[in-house]
Structure formats: structure tokens, C-alpha cells
């Protein structure tokens, strides 16, 4: 496994799910959102983050593995409706965010466990990158 400066770890067999242009687009969204957080109402920042998560998920979904795709599709279906709740019902919005965090962590752990226990093909992208 190779550890990046970002703190993430390449698990064996990890597919690349976001293109360079998609990543740059999301980077632009995050940077400009940070700039806007200096002047916009405080709760907009929460919205900008969950909106960024939605945009990342949308970029990832087509190239993700079956399990992640199902997770992302379910996430997108829910987030696109509920991300607007911040201005309407803060209590429900909080519940949605807590539940989404929990589900994301469950998926993260399940996928990591699966990859570390799976055999790695020597010529797979993850196999080549692994050290």
C-alpha cells in the first residue's frame, strides 16, 4: 500500500474514479466556496460542503465498483433532496447529516476490509502502485 501526502492509502485494486478535469472542477468549487464563506451566512458553509460531496459522488458514480456505485446512487438520491433542508428544518438537517456520516463510514470500512482481504492481481492498477 502507498500512502499519499493527503493521508489516504491506495488499497490494492483501487479503481481511479475521478478524471483530472472532474477533480479540478471540484477543486474550483471548494476553493471558491471557501472564499464565499468569508462573507455569506454561516450555515451556507455547511451547505457548500454537502453540495461538494454531492458533486464528488456524481463524478465518481459511473466509474465506481458495484458496491460503491450502489452506495453513491443511494447517497445522491437522498442528498439532492435533503441538502436544501438547511434553510427549512435544521433539526431534520442535522439528523440527515449524522445519518449520512454514519453510512459513509460504514461503507468506507466495508470497502477497506474487502480490499485488504482480497488477493491482488500483479498486473492490476492497484497491484502496480502498491509497494
Amino acid at each position, binding site marked *: 500500500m502507498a500512502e499519499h501526502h493527503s493521508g489516504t492509502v491506495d488499497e490494492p485494486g483501487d479503481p481511479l474514479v475521478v478524471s483530472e478535469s472532474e477533480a*479540478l*472542477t471540484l477543486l474550483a468549487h471548494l*476553493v*471558491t*466556496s471557501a*472564499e*464565499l464563506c468569508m462573507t455569506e451566512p454561516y450555515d451556507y458553509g455547511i451547505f*457548500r460542503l454537502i*453540495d461538494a460531496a454531492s458533486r464528488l459522488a456524481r463524478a465518481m458514480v459511473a466509474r465506481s465498483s458495484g458496491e460503491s456505485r450502489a452506495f453513491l446512487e443511494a447517497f445522491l438520491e437522498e442528498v439532492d433532496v435533503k441538502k436544501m433542508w438547511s434553510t427549512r428544518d435544521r433539526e431534520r438537517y442535522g439528523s440527515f447529516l449524522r445519518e449520512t456520516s454514519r453510512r459513509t463510514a460504514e461503507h468506507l470500512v466495508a470497502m477497506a476490509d474487502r480490499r485488504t482481504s482480497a488477493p491482488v492481481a500483479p498486473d492490476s492498477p492497484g497491484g502496480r502502485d502498491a509497494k
Partner: protein
Amino acid sequence: MPSEPRPGLAETVLETIRSRRVTRVFDDHPVADESLLQVLEAGRWATSGGNRRIHPFLVVRDPRTLARLRAVTPGMFSTPPVVIVICTDATRAAEELVQLEHDTTTWIDVGTAAMNMMVAAHALELGSCPVTSFSHGAVSVVLGLQPTVEPELFLLLGHPHEPTRPVRPTGSGRTGAAALPPGLVWWEQPGCATPELIPIQGGRGGAAADLYHRSDRADRRVKAAGPRETG
């Protein structure tokens, strides 16, 4: 002497205003040139302080530019077929002796132009959405704007992805004072010497009054700042 009201005009205008909603997600259908020109013309007829007209409308339709704009505009939740960027032209403002660094009426002019265009768009069965959540510097780069041109507001324009949701603001469907939501309107009371809040009958269905007589603006500031000091 008041002129005769034009039959149906008030109701048509008011119903257009009442039924307009913000459209955040658009479908892929293009906006017809004729409709776009009518929307722009509506903006042209908006009030402008001193009739100075320092806000050019930049029309963006190129899909690549629209995608780049969206990347630096967190307030854009989808990519519409048209974005009208209402700008401030500092060169024209200087020619008109406008002090941009102090004159906030220029922002009001941006708002009135946007509102006219949104109402016109709705009348033309188009959806629209005003957006100010963008990075001015990044947008200037994407659009290749001169340093003397400032992007102020985006008006997203297109066909709604879904039919407008029937959201009904407080007071809709009512008339007269009952149509005004509580706290929206403060009535001046001519000759009122005491700066007290005086509730009058109003609000929903004649329930507890939330409309107030106000003696003057200074009183409003005092109330907003907290309890009045005496002595």
C-alpha cells in the same frame, strides 16, 4: 386626476409576480433567441439611478464557458442554457460621475434589472434564478473580463427541469392586509409623537395583529438596538 385603470392589467401583472418561483435545475432545451431578447429588453426597462445605465448584460451561452462558470459559482446548482451576467462597467460609471465605492444605488439597479428579467422570463414560461454566490475574481478570469468590468449578479435562464413546485408564501390567496405576512409592513403614522409600536388589525385572518404603526425610521433603529434608555 387618476387615469382609468387598464382592464385586466393589474391582475395580470400581479398574478405573474405572485406565481413566479426560482428555478434551480434546468433541462437541456435551448432558450429561443426571441424569448432571450424579450427578457433582455425587460432588463433594459428597469429603473436606473439617474438613468445612468452603467450595468451591461453579458449573455453566456457557450456550453464550455457555462461549465467553467459553474465550477467557480457554488450558487449554481445546475448548468442552464443561458446565463445573463449583470455587470458594472466602471468606465461608464466614471463617465457618469458615479462614485462606485460609495454609491449603493448601483446595486439596487442591478436588482431591479434582475427582477424585471425574472418576471418577464416567467411570463415567457421560462425559469430563472438569481445567483450572487460566485468568486468575482474567478469569474472575471473565466469570462476574460476587463479589470474595469465587475460581475455583479448571474441570472440563470432556461426551461425548468420539473414543473414549478406549488410553494405558497404566507398570505397568498388572501387580499388586502391579510395578504401581508406578519412583520412585513410597518405603517407610518403621520403626526405620531410617541415612538411606541402600535399594533393594528392585520395579518392572517384577523388574528393577533403583527402590523405596526411606526412613527419614523429613527424609532425603528432604537427598537432594533434594544430597550430604550430613559432619562
